[in-house]
Each structure stands twice: as structure tokens, then as C-alpha cells.
């Protein structure tokens, strides 16, 4: 793995959530627009696998995130937050539609994002 050469490997996720590391390469996305695209381009079996694993750990993850002011997360904490933001993105696909897409909906890719809330920057 990258980083091993240096002898010290930066953790991908906080230690307590190492079980979720397999999701980091694909499911940590830089912003909401990319999260929407990831949902639309992923098959439902993979979405449900991610959803189930994250939901199972959701309360614990949020309890951990509550210990940090937004804007002060270490890098591995930012990855963990971004996994949770991805859970928010895929929740309707699983809970409402059983499909990546809004059932019979207006094509969501016709929405252009003009302004986004930063994933990790301080807000207060």
C-alpha cells in the first residue's frame, strides 16, 4: 500500500472504524455533485452493500464525529465524514426507490450545482 515505504502509514480511517476501510477508495468523493454521480453510476448490489455496512455503524460514526468541531477533523476523520455524506446520498436509492434513480423522476443529472456547502470546512 502507498505510504508503507515511508515506514509510517497515515490511517485511512480512525482506528475504531477500520472495518469500513474497504469503502474508502470508491465511496469517499470530493463533493455532493460527485456523490450524486457515484450513486447514479453504481449498481444497486454495491450500493446496498455500502448502505448496510454504514447503517450498521452509523450511530457509532456520528458519536465519533460529534467529538470534533467541523473544520478540525484529522484527515482520517474527514474520510469518515465523507463516507457518512455518501450514506445520505444513497439512502433514498435504498429506502425509497430500490433504484439509483428517483422513480419515474425528472433526470437529476439535469441539475447543475451552482453553490455547495463545503464537506469539511468550519461553518461557525
Amino acid at each position, binding site marked *: 500500500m502507498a505510504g508503507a515505504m515511508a515506514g509510517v502509514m497515515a490511517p485511512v480511517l480512525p482506528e475504531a472504524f477500520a472495518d469500513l476501510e474497504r469503502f474508502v477508495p470508491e465511496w469517499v468523493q470530493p463533493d455532493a455533485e460527485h456523490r450524486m454521480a457515484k450513486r447514479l453510476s453504481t449498481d444497486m448490489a454495491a450500493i446496498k452493500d455500502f448502505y448496510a455496512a454504514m447503517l450498521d455503524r452509523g450511530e457509532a460514526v456520528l458519536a465519533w464525529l460529534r467529538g470534533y468541531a*467541523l473544520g478540525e477533523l484529522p484527515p482520517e476523520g474527514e474520510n469518515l465524514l465523507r463516507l457518512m455524506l455518501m450514506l445520505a446520498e444513497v439512502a433514498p436509492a435504498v*429506502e425509497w426507490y430500490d433504484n439509483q434513480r428517483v422513480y419515474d423522476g*425528472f433526470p437529476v443529472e439535469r441539475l447543475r450545482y451552482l453553490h455547495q*456547502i463545503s464537506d469539511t470546512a468550519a*461553518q461557525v
Partner: protein
Amino acid sequence: MNEMSKPPVPGIGITAKYPEVGTGPVDTAIYHDPAIYEKEMAAIFRRSWFMIGRVEQVAQPGDFFTFYMPTFRQEVLVCRDRNGEVRAFHNVCTHRGNVVEHRREGHSNGLFTCRFHGWSFDLQGNLKGLRDEEGFFGLDKTCLGLKPIPMGLWQGFIWVCPEDEPHQSLEEFLGDQGRDTAGYPWGACTQFYQTEAEVACNWKLVNDSPAEVYHIPVLHPNSAAPTMMASGNVMGRLLDVEVRGNHRTNSHYSVMGEPKPVQKLAYYHAAAAQNVVRDDLEYEMPVGINATRSPFWTVDLIMFFPTLAFTLSAGMYTAHQVWPLGPNKSIYHQRVFVRPATTAAERFGQENTMVEYRDIVMEDFSTLERIQRALDSGQIREFHYHDHEFALRHQHHVVSQTLAAYDREQAGEI
């Protein structure tokens, strides 16, 4: 079971409160006729004010944003000057007409410099620098500043008027609706997502989409309906509609149902500012919001005719805005405003709110281009409105009355 679990289901009788609006079927011509659309532009749109942003977007002197008003093909530059005043200009260089600021938002060091020939303007719009000035012929630089656009502030929202001489003041335009909804903590929701889409439909269809909840149990069976229609309100009735001049507000009745699993995480563990009844408000609810003071209130749809509707709950709100481009073409703007997250967990609650609202609007919007097709082809010539679709009937009434008054005005009768 507590008392809240058996609320009364709202009755029929909204339309009867406003007999002047009528009860019959309405002609759909105003939804597609090009001549009517042209008249609407003159009689309604050029005489209205338009919200283009909030003061928080220009928090510090030098902060700016630009906004394109597609209906008028006008580009606006908003900034805060060194005295702390918000200013709005036509974003047009007085040399040859290029934009003086091409970025969507940012911070200026004090000068906006056109990227065409380098003319520069200060935060008050004064022309400060022009290259190779000796090659011009008797220019009066004092007359070549950026042209201000009529601008006004209401509750931190920045409004502009496309006409140099507004037909009415912003205060007159906002009327009782503005007065009765002032005081809500509009500025507390400092964080927002903003998206836009082009939709092949008349502007009124975009307004109609959230303006009735008769459709909720049918169009939103798995999303909005289970949480909003719990408690036996199976027909999706409103608490009330209150007309204030050309504007109006729908008060939504609902009782929180059983949230879905991820909603539970957001509501219970991440302080998501959801549409839930709250009794711990840190502000006094203005008289124009939840006007019936019902304990079963969740959301008001606050319409500022002709193009802006807020869906507003105790803790957050969205702005649903349409910019007409033609009789069957519009630009839709959606803004989701939420309170700032303190902890990293609360950021998840914000995202949940945005995604839910976005997907529910996508459900709503499935109908728009299909309806427009039926209108354009003459397949539907009348609309028959339910009592709880009163807001649509009122819009039809306001448009028809305004166009008729405009006709009389043009004929010199008033």
C-alpha cells in the same frame, strides 16, 4: 398514545374563503399562449422584484458574487463596499459591454477589472483606471462608472428590479406577505446548496409543483408521504391557505411518522434541521408563519408572486425560484438553506436534508414537461382544481386580473 397522535384531519372550505376567485374550471391558455406570455413580461415581470442572493454572500468589504437573470438577460454584480454597504450593478463594462467580473463569487482587492481591455472599477462602481487613456477622445470618467441596478434588502435577501425606474418599491411589492413573515430567523441558515435546471415548461407549472399537497400521497408514496401524511391525513390536506395580495401562503399539516433508518440517524444523532414540530424555538414565530398556530403545523409554502416560494419549517427553509425563458421554457433555481453545523456529525444532517429535498423535487418535476406537452398540443384546455389546490386557482386569478388591468391601462382607461 398521546393527544398528538390523533389530530383532526383538515376539512374542505379554503376556496370558499375567497369567493372572488371562483370555483369553476380555468382556461389553460395562460400556460402556453405566446401572446399571453409576452404580455406577462410587460405587465408582471418587468414590474416585479427578484431575489438574487443573501447578504451573507458578501459578508466582508470586497466580497462579491455575480448573478445572471435569464428572464431579462441581465447580468448583475453584487458587492460590499468599504463602508459596509451592499451594492448592485449591471455587470457590464462601460467601454464595450463585456462583464467586468466573470467569476461567480469571490473577494475583490477593491477593483473589478474587465478582462477584455482592462478597465477597472472600484467597489462603488466608479471608473478608476483605463489603459492608455490618451488615446481616447474627451472621455468623462465620472459618467462611465458601472450602472447601478435598483436594489433593496428584505430580511437579508438581496432583491433587484430589471427596470431603471421600478414600477413599485420593494416594500410595496413585498406587501403584507413581507411584513408578516419578517422576524423569522432568515439569516440563521447561513449554509446553502444551490442548483439550477432548465425545464421545458411554463413558469407557472414550476410554481404549481409545490403549491398543492393533494398529490403527495400519490406522487411521493415512499418519500414525503410516510412522514408527512401519517396520522390519517390520507388525502393530503392543508391546514389553510392565506392570501396576502398577489402573494399567498400554504400551511402544511402533518405529524411526524416513523422515519426511515438513515433519517433516524440524521434526526436523532446529527441535529438535522428537519420539518419537525418544535416547541423549543429561540425566536417568536411571525404572525404570517403557521398563521393558524396549529400544533400540527410543519411547513409553510410562502409564495412571493410571481417567481419565488420558500418552503419553510421552524429550523430551515428552501427557496424554489423560477426564471421564465419563454411560454414553455424556464430555468429553475433551488436553494436549500440550513443552519451552520457546529460538530462534524451535524454536517451529515445537512447533507441528508439536501438529498431528501432534491429527490422529492425530482419526483415533483417528473410531471412538468409532460403537462406542458399536453398544454402545447391542446390536449388539455381546462384545469379542474380541488379545494386544497386553491393556491393554483389563486395564481390563475392573479395573472388574469393583472393582465386585464394592464389591457385597460394600455387602452388609456386607467
